[in-house]
Every structure is written in C-alpha cells, then in structure tokens.
C-alpha cells in the first residue's frame, strides 16, 4: 500500500491528503501476542463482526478523521463494522462497549476516553475471548491478557517533542505558559509530563510561569490566553496541548495587538488549520498526533486472527511540523 491509496478523508478535516500512519519500530515494545496466548479461536476478519467504540463526539478533526479512517478501512476490507460513540461520557463508553458485545461484536477496537476503569469490559471480553485493540489511548492492563495490542502515539513523547520545539523557538531562554487540556484526562497528564521533563532537563533557562486549563477547546484557549496576556504581557512562549487551544491562543494574541511570531506557540495534533498558522507565522511548531488508525488496526486484527504474532504496543511515528516543512507538508495535515 502506498500513500496514494491511503484513505481519503472526505469526512471533514481540512480536506488534506491523508497521510497513513507509520510504525515507529524503535519505540514499539518487543512483546508480542498470539492467539494461542490470548485464547479464543482464529478468525477471518471478513467473517466476523467488528465493534468500534469512539470516545468523543466526532466534532473535531482528530475524532472525525479517526472514525472515518476506521469506517473506510472496514468498508475497503468488507468487514461488518458496528460503531458507538460515548460523547465524552466515560460511563457511557463502558455501556457502549458492552452493548457492542451483546450485539455480537467478536473483535473490538476501542478508542478509550480514559486509560483506567476498564475492568468490567476487560472481564467480559476475556470471558468470551474477544480480542481488544485499543487505539490512540492505552488501556491500563496486562497486554495479551486484557487486550491484544495498543496502537497509538506516545503522549509523553509528544510532550517532549513539543518541548524540543519550544526550546528551539526560544533558544532555551524565556517564560512559557501551558494551556492544559481537560483536567483528569490522561492525555493532559502525559503531554504535561513529557513537556516539563524535557524543559527541566534540557533548558533550565525556560520557566513555566503559567498553567491553566483550556479544556481542549478553542474558546477555552482563547479566553485563558486573553487573561494571560493581560497579567503576563511579556510571555515568550505558549505550549498548547492541542491545536484548537493553540488556534484560540492565536486569536487572543491577535486581538491583544501582538504581532505574529512575538509569542512562540507550540501545539500538538497536526490539523490543517494549525499547520496553516505555521505557514502564516503565528504558530511555531506542531507535533503531530496521527489519527488514521484504520489500516494498522485492521492489519493487526487480521494477523491476530490468522494466528500470527502481533506486537502488543504499536507506537506510530508522529511527524512534526515547523516553519521549515509546514508549507510542503500542509497537504498531509488533517
């Protein structure tokens, strides 16, 4: 499969040319899982029903692209797919997955809203030997016992890479604000952890002076940044934990009369709009978090069903956009 036939994401996003996920061989663990170890019988993907549980409403580019990628891939492979969406309600997601099982799903692909709290689902799936593949966020549990594999990005690593970009932008000196995601969310925690760790280790000259939640929304990012520029007018950099908040920050800075590039913004996700802002000079860098899990997920399921070995941790390589490549990579953003 080449880039050309990768899924077209016409479901929304920026209409950019989809860029398929690529595994990061180095980051992936060595452990593998097979049907024999996990339990259950082999299957041919086209004969079984696959259930996909999405965690959040498909109303941001990441989720839209993610769901679309799964749906497209299922269609391409002729797989019977049933889906559900928990609308950011964790209790709902637990129910959803159980519903999927009672509707006869024999393979589960889960985009978990939260890493912990999956015990009831894991127990039930284990009892019926239903293989679980989690995408984008991990489920905490024992690989090859509770689930088959996790495919996704390493959020801590994303935080580190964002820090690298920030260090680069500020030349290791300055005051930085962090726009946190929603409180209590693993992604928030891990993207913060990686960022702080790398800044402390590599750039003692950079000080994190401000950390407030923008709830992963553009409005949140904008409102918090508006307050920020009043109380910390000399802020040098803003690390936004997703693109939406970053774009909100841009609007706020713009409204406060700042020039593009005056404050260095680094964000995570890689949506088209954010990458465009790099081109325009408002955002310094974007660490990608690629949502196109369809091909890898189904590939893993297929191999697993056929009795082959599947790595229990499939970490994808996330690209990074910065002023040097933004213009040319823009079509690959989602």
């Amino acid at each position, binding site marked *: 499969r080449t880039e050309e036939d990768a899924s077209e994401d016409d479901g929304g996003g920026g209409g950019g040319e989809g860029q398929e996920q690529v595994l990061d061989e180095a980051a992936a663990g060595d452990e593998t899982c097979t049907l024999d170890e996990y339990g259950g019988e082999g299957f041919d993907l086209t004969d079984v029903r696959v259930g996909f549980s*999405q965690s959040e*409403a*498909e*109303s941001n580019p990441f989720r839209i692209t993610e769901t679309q990628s799964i749906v497209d891939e299922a269609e391409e492979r002729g797989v019977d797919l*049933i*889906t*559900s*969406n928990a*609308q950011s*309600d*964790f*209790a*709902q997601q*637990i*129910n*959803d997955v*159980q*519903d999927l099982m*009672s*509707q*006869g799903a024999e393979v589960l692909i889960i985009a978990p*809203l*939260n*890493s*912990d*709290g*999956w*015990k*009831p689902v894991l*127990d039930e799936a284990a009892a019926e030997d239903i293989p679980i593949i989690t995408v984008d966020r991990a489920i*905490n549990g024992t690989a090859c016992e509770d689930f088959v594999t996790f495919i996704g990005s390493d959020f801590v690593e994303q935080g580190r890479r964002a820090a690298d970009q920030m260090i680069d932008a500020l030349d290791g000196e300055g005051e930085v604000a962090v726009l946190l995601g*929603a*409180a*209590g*969310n*693993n992604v*928030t*925690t891990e993207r*913060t952890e990686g960022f702080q760790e790398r800044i402390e280790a590599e750039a003692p000259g950079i000080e994190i002076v401000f950390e407030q939640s923008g709830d992963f929304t553009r409005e949140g990012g904008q409102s918090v940044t508006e307050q920020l520029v009043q109380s910390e007018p000399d802020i040098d950099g803003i690390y936004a934990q997703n693109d939406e908040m970053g774009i909100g920050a841009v609007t706020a800075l713009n409204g406060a009369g700042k020039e593009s590039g005056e404050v260095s913004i680094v964000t995570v996700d890689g949506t088209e709009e954010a990458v465009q802002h790099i081109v325009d000079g408002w955002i310094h860098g974007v660490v990608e978090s690629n949502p196109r899990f369809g091909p890898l997920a189904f590939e893993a399921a297929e191999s697993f069903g056929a009795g082959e070995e599947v790595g229990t941790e499939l970490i994808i390589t996330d690209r990074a956009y910065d002023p040097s490549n933004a213009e040319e990579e823009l079509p690959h953003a989602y």
Partner: protein
Amino acid sequence: MSTVTERVPGPGSESSRGVPVRELLQRHGALLVLAVVLVAAGVGLDGFLTAGNLNHVAVGSAFLAILALGMTFVIVTGGIDLSVGTNFALGGVLAAWASQYGSLAALALPLAVCGAIGLLNGVLIARARLAPFITTLATMLGAWGLMLSVSDEGNTTYLVPDGAVLTSLVHGRLFGVIGYPLLLVLVLFVIGGIALSRTGWGQNVYAVGGDERSAALMGVPVARTKTAVYTVSGLCAGAAGVLNAFWLGSGVTIFGIGIELQAISAVVIGGTLLSGGYGFVSGSFVGVMLLAVIQNIINTISGLTSAFQEVVSGVFLIVVVLAQSRLSRSRPRA
C-alpha cells in the same frame, strides 16, 4: 349531630371502592411506558430481550439508580441535589485511594466524606435557608474541586489493588445471571421504599415537601428532616462511588459529569413531583431503567451518528416525560 359529606369526585362512585384506577395509573405511568418500550424493542431488535443484555443494562445503571434513590428523597421534600454527580466522582476516587488500606477503608472513607458534603448541603439549606438549587450547584463545584485536589488536579488515577474483597463481590453474579450490583440496588430500593412510605420519618419527608410551614406547625422537625434527606443523598453518592471504584477497578476522575441531571430525569419520569410532597421510590427505579433501556436501544440502532443520537435521546426524554405526565394527568397539584 350534624353531618358533612364530602362527595369525593372521581369516575362514578369509585371512591367507595379501594384505590381507584387513576391512582394506579399515576403511580405506574412510567412502568407502562417502560413495558411498551420493552415490548417494542423486543419485537423490533434482536438480541435485545436476552438475559445477558438486560442484565448488563440493569447493572450498568446501578450507579444511576443509587443516585436516583437519594435524589428521590430530596425531591419529595421539594428540593433538588445537583451535587450528587461530582460527589459520586469524588466518592469513587476516594474509594480507590483508600482501597490500598483494605475494603473497609474503601467503604468508610467515601461514605464519610460524601455524607459530610450531603450534611453540609442539608445544613445550608435547612438551617441557613438557602435555595437548594443554587446551594447544591455550589457544592457540586466544590466536590469537583475536592476531587481534583485529591487526585493531583486529576493527574493521578488510583488503582484498586487486585484481589480486593469488594471487587469480587461487585463483579459476582447470583446464579451466574443477576449481577450483585443489581441485587444491591434492589435491596437499597426496598429499604428506601419502606423508609419513605412506611415510617414516620418518611411521612415527615412528604410533609416537608407538601408545605414546609404547615409541616412545621404540625410538629414535623422540618430542618432535621431536610438535613437528613441531603445527607442520605450524599451517602448514596458515596455508596455509588464505592461501587463504581470497584466496578471499574480504579478511581476514574472523569466520571459522573452530568449524571445528576440523569438522576433528576429518572426521578421525574418515575412520577415524583419536582414541587415536592408526592412521589415514590419504585417510580424512580422504573425511571432509571427506562433511561437505560432507551440508551441501549439508541446504541443498538446503529448507523446513527453521534450527533443524531443526542437528538434522538433528547426527543425521547421529552416524549417519555410527556407520556408519563399525560398518563398521570389527574395527579394532584400543589
């Protein structure tokens, strides 16, 4: 001696025979709706009316049911408790944290803390005479803040150690069919039902909701009764939190947002008047089941986008409430 004969109006001279049909309909309007929905879904959807599916619908709504139980008492006094959702989340986190010291601690701590928050609600409402809606809205934020501060701003998820006594209980099934949480809910509802309808305390609860001033003049300890119902509601939230922590195996920090509104809906659907003085515990149970079944049905009808599902559940809610209130049209008004 002279005579006053009140001809009590009602269909025909029904007043002379036991409880009139009207009363039955009033009390069981929601049950009728539930029956209709169940039959329709059973006919229309395969795999719906199976023991497995129904059990998981019931077990999955156990937390909601416990919250709705506490909420019923509160609403019968004419109050409302918006804090149960975050209180419940707090209870879950505390239970998970305390579980490292054993199941007893995991049970006691959340009950104590959540009960105390309920007590605080009660004192503010009953003694300081603040409006329940705004008071519990404030403590809703407070409980959320407390939860964030005990979980390091939501960054730490406490795990329940393997092999905790309560875990096996929570996940067990009676005769391999009926989950213990469901049994617990049934037991709590029976106790709650008896407390509300058969004890002097329950009469006080009704009296306070009927007319606070009159109740006070009739010798009902109004403040004590009100304090008690909010405390009970807090305890219910704590208990649901414990159940939740052991059910999910961890203290999930993103749980319970908006669940208070579901609990209120369930209670109202169950025929309890928001204005107070009238209502039944059994109705609330039916209300919870109705909400759960509807969600299950919406999930089962796949092909709906997540946004459409919301539209459908909103419309469903209003239809159910309308149907319910139509069935119990002639119920007394305050």
